[in-house]
Structures are given as structure tokens and as C-alpha cells.
């Protein structure tokens, strides 16, 4: 924390602890970061109050991509909700598909074929790799390392090819639906996936050499955005942000879903709890996903159905009930709270994305005393996607 020990004497705290910021004093300036797309953080803006080049206060503003998904779903039948949920999170849409499907299946009492669970797990890990690849490019880019983003985009594109051949689409896969998954693995998928995984590993080695073993990156990332492990529960911190703080929180291990209880892995953690540590947790988590995909393809059953028999979806009613289904996405805990009322439509859907806590209260806390030039790097280090805040 030495970097910031030399902080400005402004603003001074009032007796009640609040900050005494007088914008007319000439000491302070309001500065908006966003709402243009400031890299990987999406369409959100941070209203900064700066004193010199130091942030004294930050407020997160979202709503630039609000489409009201939760409300839209109340007007759609259970099957009609399936194609829209993926849009809540562009880089890693599959968690929406999975959590929604699992919640519906739970309340409707639908048993999903085992093979579908394996394919779902495969897809979620593929999505995690893509999300991390995008993150790495964004994190490096925020500190001026533009080439990393080009490499990770290439690697991600290879994985999108795998998504395309498996699901029939590159970005919004619409493949995990209530009842199972749409289709089996295509012929020769394992072989092509292995080639892709090797290419990703090779790219990651380059990323490691040029980003993680880079004096510039270290200089800026180390010590930036320190998260005290004690805040984890207080601020609802999950995923790599918590694991970077040494808290081995990983839903895959804590409450195994799908087939995670049949895979061998340990949550990746770091203890430094700064931007560098979080980036490294994600890099290693990505490599773990590569390993998990290999395990899945080696262990999954190759026979059997991938889709349960659904009731006629046009008149599908689900009895009154409520449940919460969570999964560990690349950014932390992703969950769907689904309430049904016996009709053919959801009564209420609430999407719990990790960014909701990370980009709001946590970011607003961490951003104080940060140098303006590091704001983008800090935001990216929380790996937030605003659409899951405003939904």
C-alpha cells in the first residue's frame, strides 16, 4: 500500500465521517469514465470526483443496457424464456441458460439425462475459458499491453469455432434448454477440441511471458485494488476476487452441481488480493478449465439421451414454488431465483450476477485514492459485466 501512502490531504473528513467535497473550491473535478465501452467492463460509467489525479470518490452508474429481462420473462412461457436469457451476459451466456434451465427443471420435476449434465458442464467450462480470455486481453489492455488482447481474441475465436459446431451458434448458443441440451457432440469433436486446447495453452504461455512476467504490468497491477479477506462476506464477494484474497470460495467445490463431483480439481487461490493476484488466479483457473474439459471428454458417457421428454411446451404450467440455483461462473456466483405460481409463465425471475456486488459497492470502495490512470485497470480487475447488474 506504500504507493498510495503519499495521498493528498484532500478531501478532509467532516466530524460525522463524511467527506467535505466542495466542487466550487477549485480543488475538485468531476470526471466521467464511461458510459462508452471502456474496454472489457461494458457499458457502465463511473462518476469520479478527483483531486489532482487522485480519485476521492466514485459512483457507479448503470442502466445503459437495461432491457428488463426479468420483466420480459414474466410475459413469456417457460420455453420462450429460454432464448432470451443468454443475452444477459454476452461473454459467458451459458450460465444463464444453465441456471434458468436447472431452476425450471427443479420446480417442474424434470429429470435431466446424465449425458446432458456432462455436456452442460463441458459448455460451461468452454464458456469460462472464453470469458477469461476476454478478461486477460482487457486487463492487459487497460495497462497498455494491446497485443495480449489480439492473442486472446484469436484463442477465443478457436473456442467459438468449437461452440459453433457443437451448439450451432458462436455467441448466443441457445443450446442448454430446460430438459437437457439440444444435441449430442458432433463427430470428431474431441479431436478438434484437443487441438483448440493445445493452441490455447500455447497462447497462455505467451500471455504469461509477456503479461505476467512483465515489469510494466507488475508495476501497475501489484498492490492495486487490495481486497481485505474480511470484506468477502460483508460485500458479497465471490469468484476470483474472493479467491485472490485467499478465500477458496468456488461453488463447483462447495456445492457441486452437474458433474463437478466427478471431476478432479481444487479451487485456485492467491493471497496477495490485488489486481495482479486476481489476474493470476484467472489465468490458472483458465488452465484448470482446459484440464477439466479433458477430464470431461475422457469420462463422459457416449451413449444415451441428451434431452428429457418435456410436456407440450405451448401449455406448460409449473406448480407454485420458488428456488434458487447457482453456479460458479468466471466472475463468481451466478444464480437464478425463480418463483412460479402454477401458471404457464414465471411469476418472478431474479438474476443474481457477481457484478451486482463487485461493480457497485465494492468498486465504489476500492476506487477511492486510486490514480485516474489506474481506474480502468481496477475496474477490469473486478471482471464485471454491467448487463447482469441492470438486466
Amino acid at each position, binding site marked *: 500500500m506504500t504507493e498510495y501512502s503519499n495521498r493528498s490531504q484532500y478531501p478532509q473528513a467532516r466530524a460525522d465521517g463524511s467527506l467535505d467535497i466542495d466542487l466550487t473550491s477549485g480543488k475538485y473535478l468531476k470526471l466521467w469514465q464511461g458510459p462508452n465501452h471502456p474496454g472489457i467492463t461494458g457499458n457502465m460509467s463511473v462518476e469520479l470526483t478527483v483531486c489532482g489525479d487522485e480519485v476521492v470518490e466514485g459512483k457507479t452508474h*448503470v*442502466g445503459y443496457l*437495461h432491457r*428488463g429481462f*426479468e*420483466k*420480459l420473462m*414474466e*410475459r413469456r412461457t417457460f420455453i420462450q424464456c429460454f432464448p432470451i436469457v443468454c443475452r444477459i451476459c454476452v461473454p459467458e451466456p451459458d450460465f444463464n441458460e444453465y441456471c434458468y434451465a436447472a431452476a425450471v427443471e*427443479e420446480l417442474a420435476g424434470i429429470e435431466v439425462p446424465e449425458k446432458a449434465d456432462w455436456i452442460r458442464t463441458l459448455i460451461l467450462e468452454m464458456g469460462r475459458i472464453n470469458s477469461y480470455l476476454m478478461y486477460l486481453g482487457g486487463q492487459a489492455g487497460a495497462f497498455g499491453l494491446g497485443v495480449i488482447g489480439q492473442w486472446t481474441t484469436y484463442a477465443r475465436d478457436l473456442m467459438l469455432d468449437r461452440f459453433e459446431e457443437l451448439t450451432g451458434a458462436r455467441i448466443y448458443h441457445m443450446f442448454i434448454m430446460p430438459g437437457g441440451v439440444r444435441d449430442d457432440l458432433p463427430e470428431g469433436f474431441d479431436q478438434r477440441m484437443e487441438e483448440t486446447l493445445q493452441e490455447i495453452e500455447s497462447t497462455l504461455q505467451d500471455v504469461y511471458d509477456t503479461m505476467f512476467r512483465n515489469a510494466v504490468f507488475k508495476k501497475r497491477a501489484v498492490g492495486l485494488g487490495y481486497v481485505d479477506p474480511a470484506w468477502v*462476506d*460483508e*460485500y*458479497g464477494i465471490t469468484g476470483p476476487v474472493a479467491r485472490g484474497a485467499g478465500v477458496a*470460495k468456488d461453488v463447483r467445490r*462447495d*456445492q457441486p452441481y452437474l458433474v463437478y463431483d466427478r471431476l478432479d480439481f481444487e479451487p485456485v487461490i492467491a493471497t496477495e488480493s490485488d489486481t495482479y493476484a486476481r489476474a493470476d488466479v484467472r489465468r490458472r483457473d483458465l488452465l484448470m478449465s482446459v484440464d477439466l474439459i479433458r477430464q470431461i471428454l475422457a469420462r463422459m458417457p457416449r451413449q444415451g439421451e441428451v434431452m428429457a421428454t418435456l410436456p407440450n411446451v405451448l401449455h406448460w404450467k409449473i406448480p407454485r*414454488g*420458488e*428456488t*434458487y440455483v*447457482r453456479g460458479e461462473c468466471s466472475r463468481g*456466483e451466478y*444464480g437464478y*431465483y425463480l*418463483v412460479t405460481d402454477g401458471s404457464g409463465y414465471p*411469476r*418472478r425471475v*431474479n438474476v*443474481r450476477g457477481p457484478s*451486482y*456486488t463487485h461493480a*457497485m*459497492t*465494492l468498486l465504489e*470502495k476500492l476506487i477511492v485514492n486510486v490514480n485516474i490512470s489506474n481506474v480502468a485497470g481496477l475496474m477490469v480487475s473486478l471482471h464485471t459485466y454491467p448487463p447482469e*447488474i*441492470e438486466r
Partner: protein
Amino acid sequence: METLYARLKEPFGLTDWVLQKPDLCFVTVAREQLRPLLLHLRDLEGFTHLVLLTAVDWIEEDRFQLTYLLHDRAKARDIGVRLMLPREDASMDSIHELWPTAATYQRELREMFGIDFPGSPRVNEDFILEGWADLPPYRRDFDTLQYAHEAYAERAGRETRDPARHMKEQLYPDGGQDD
């Protein structure tokens, strides 16, 4: 979970217990018991993580349901605490002192459902919507389709036919019987 409920049922006057799955249950609590219950769960039972706070509009029953979902990582279990509020002038005590992040949830509930949380930081600031003057949009009586019709122009040239009606017009226009 059953033992937890058995222990807390009496002291906190819990009702409507539902064990949704082995690691998730729901209970309903009265307004005055909410804060003591949440504190107890957080500090003594290990439910340290506030997963979410949201509302359900049971408009037919004229009330809102607030759901406080708490997670106990050590025992890998969740409890959903329901609280029923009258819909009219809905207002609830803030819990931002228990979890700072609750302020964001409460701000959203204020905006989307019109449920007030006096004392919650920035609760009256616009969160997702800007300059919204209509009904709080996540209330059941806000009609999104009607809103869309009023707010946006339909693309010209769209029309459709009902198969049965079209067949009647084509095959038996006078409603005639038999073939």
C-alpha cells in the same frame, strides 16, 4: 436444515417452512423479527453471505414478498427468508448496516417495485432508470406490452392470419355446415 428450523421456529415465529432441496429452505418471518433473525443467522448460524435481496409482487394477494437469501458456506446451505409487506405504500427497514451491499438491492427495489427503505444510502437516487415517471416497472400491474406499443413504433407491413379463421373464409365463408 430441519434442526435449524426446529430451533428457530419458536423464537422467531417462523412460518411456511419449505425444504426446497436438501441445501435450500424457505421460511416466512414477521417484520419485527426480520432483523433479529438475520443477525442470528449471520452471527450465530454461519449464514454470512447475503446472496440476494429481491421482491415478488403477489398483486392478487395485495402484498409484496421480500426474499432475503443467505448462504452458509461452511455447511454449504442456503436459507431464503420471506417477508410479506402490504402493497400499499410499501416500506421496509433497511439492512445496509448488516451488509453494505444491501443498499444496492434496496435502491433497485425502490426504483423497480416502489418499495421504500428509509435510511438506506442513496435509496432515492436513480439506479437503472433515468427520469422514470411511470409505475415502478417491475410491479405486476405495469404492462410492458402496452408500454412498448406506446413508446415504440411498429414496423410497417406486419400482418398475420389465424389459420382456422382463414380456412373458414376460404372454405366455408357463410359458416355453412358439412363438407
